[in-house]
């Protein structure tokens, strides 16, 4: 089993705890994305897998073996660094084959693997160039090639695409998927870019403040956020989180209210949580200039042009609610009516900020497909 298991893993530098009590498993052959804002501990987590960072407490298992004290060279991992870490004085060929040569891999085998990666990553013709004579995209591919020739069980990538422009990033993402389909290594991929996470990940581990916030498929991370942080972090513009009062089957926001569907009323009743926050994505709010049934009144603050659609920021009883609209009729201070799509609402416990879950009827419904989310978010 080429899996990776974190068991109560913590990492402290002096008195600062950067990774707090991590417990999760990276399954053999999956692409797991470590996602989070900068400083959340995701890179440290990756570096602990690589053996470049000592584990302060807890156990890390790879392939069923505890590796806390196993040097990085013996963990059979390949890594692509954010700055690529190419040896500046070595040619592309030397950079790619250096590790193999030191490991005394037979020369013909080295040549075979070299030819293969050069072809796959379109680096033929660059073999004898120095890194400084390559473009950013080529350097990134050399770094990838150097990691790939090792044929390791584990493939670790630390924000490998963050130095590339958008076009290159899209093609590199495709390339990475292709490579993974070919080699089926266990991939752990660090990024702060949610689109990368959504498009590349089999599962996403969202981290914040050294803690794992949610670990699930991209669909679930997007559609069933486990807490307020996840709801806000994933998606752009972020999920609206509104302070509400809930009683008598109605959600009250300021002086206004709307009626909840029966399944939600039952679900909230079962959970018994009194103090709630309501989350809803901007694209799940319907906006209209005329009153709608079961809607709330708001005022337009300003409108952001997002290319194919518009994001309308509204004032809803003193709270800001962003709404996606297909057209740009909206003028500041205009009165608008907002209807929240009943089965797209999320409720969180206001104290713990954790999701209170979803009515069973909603869980049975199929989530939108993976690809759709990627498209939505790349806007």
């Amino acid at each position: 089993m080429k899996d990776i298991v974190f068991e109560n893993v913590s990492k402290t530098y002096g008195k600062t705890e950067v990774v707090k009590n991590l417990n999760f498993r990276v399954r053999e052959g999956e692409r797991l994305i470590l996602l989070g804002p900068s400083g959340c501990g995701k890179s440290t987590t990756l570096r602990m897998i690589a053996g470049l960072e000592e584990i302060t407490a807890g156990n890390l298992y790879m392939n069923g073996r505890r590796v806390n004290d196993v040097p990085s060279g013996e963990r059979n991992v390949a890594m692509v660094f954010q700055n690529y870490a190419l040896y500046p004085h070595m040619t592309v060929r030397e950079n790619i084959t250096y590790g193999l040569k030191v490991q005394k891999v037979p020369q013909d085998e080295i040549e075979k693997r070299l030819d293969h990666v050069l072809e796959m990553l379109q680096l033929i013709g660059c073999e004898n160039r120095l890194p400084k004579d390559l473009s950013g995209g080529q350097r990134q591919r050399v770094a990838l090639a150097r990691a790939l020739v090792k044929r390791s069980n584990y493939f670790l990538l630390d924000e490998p695409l963050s130095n590339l422009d958008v076009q290159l990033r899209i093609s590199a993402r495709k390339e990475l998927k292709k490579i993974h389909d070919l080699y089926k290594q266990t991939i752990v991929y660090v990024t702060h870019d949610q689109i990368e996470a959504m498009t590349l990940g089999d599962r996403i581990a969202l981290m914040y403040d050294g803690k794992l916030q949610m670990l699930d498929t991209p669909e679930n991370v997007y559609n069933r956020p486990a807490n307020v942080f996840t709801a806000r972090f994933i998606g752009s513009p972020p999920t609206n989180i509104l302070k509400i009062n809930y009683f008598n089957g109605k959600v009250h926001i300021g002086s206004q209210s709307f009626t909840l569907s029966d399944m939600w009323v039952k679900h909230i009743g079962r959970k018994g949580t009194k103090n709630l926050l309501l989350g809803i994505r901007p694209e799940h709010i319907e906006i209209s200039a005329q009153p709608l049934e079961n809607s709330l009144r708001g005022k337009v603050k300003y409108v952001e042009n997002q290319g194919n659609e518009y994001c309308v920021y509204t004032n809803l009883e003193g709270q800001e609610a962003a709404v996606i609209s297909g057209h740009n009729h909206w003028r500041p201070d205009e009165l608008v009516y907002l209807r929240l799509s009943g089965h797209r609402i999320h409720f969180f416990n206001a104290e713990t900020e954790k999701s209170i879950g979803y009515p069973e009827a909603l869980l049975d419904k199929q989530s939108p497909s993976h690809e759709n989310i990627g498209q939505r978010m790349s806007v």
Partner: protein
Amino acid sequence: MKTNRMVSVIWHFIIFTTVVILIFPVVFSIGVSFKPLADAYNNVLNFIPFPLTMENYAKLFHTLPVVKIVFNTFIVASVVTTFKLITSFLAAYAFVYFDFKGKRILYFVLISTIFIPFTVTMIPNYLIVSELGLIDSVWGVILPQLADAMGIFLIHQSMRGIPFSLIEAARLDHISHGRVMKDIVLPLVRPSVTSAGIWFFITTWNEFVWPVLILKTVDNYTLPLALQMFISSEGGTDFTVAMAVSVITMIIPLALYLMFQRYIIGTFTSSGIK
């Protein structure tokens, strides 16, 4: 346009003057070394002597074992340079890439020894060398000079410029520290190693006070000591022979530099960590 030309003229004048000031003593000593003694005093400004005389060199080779002295100097300078480079490189590597307790304090103490004047350590060093029975031996000159805090500092500074991820990438490939030093770190810090090496070689080559304390017999002398024999000899200063020694002292490092010039210049121009 006019001002540009003016600036250029001024710059050329400054550069020309500097070059003359630097070259003058060299030309002067070479000239004097080929003059008869009387001529040297009478025709001071006549830099290029005519007729040439080899008598100063003949006298020098007659009075002193010059080849032996050059050999001694070469041994001292090259052994000291080699060892200083090795110890500086290894120490700098340890300070940059290893974590150990008291690392910062140790480094600070080490670097502060740069500021201790030679005269302070001269006597303790002399006593140690004497206890070891190395008085009047080139090894006595060499021994206290095998490590150098300045060298550690210089190489340490340039090693810190290497992205740490390069070393980590090597660690992931299971590459030993020895290979990392040889294949990755050394090629990247070669400019500073080369400059430190040139600096070590020249200073040791020209060193006077320490060898004069240790070396007693002429057979073990180094070149600066031989030079001194003709400046303060009992029969008065033998000016022209002293210049002949100067020329020999100067010519060897110069010849070495010319031999390795392409390599040395190449080191400085080809470097550059991106």
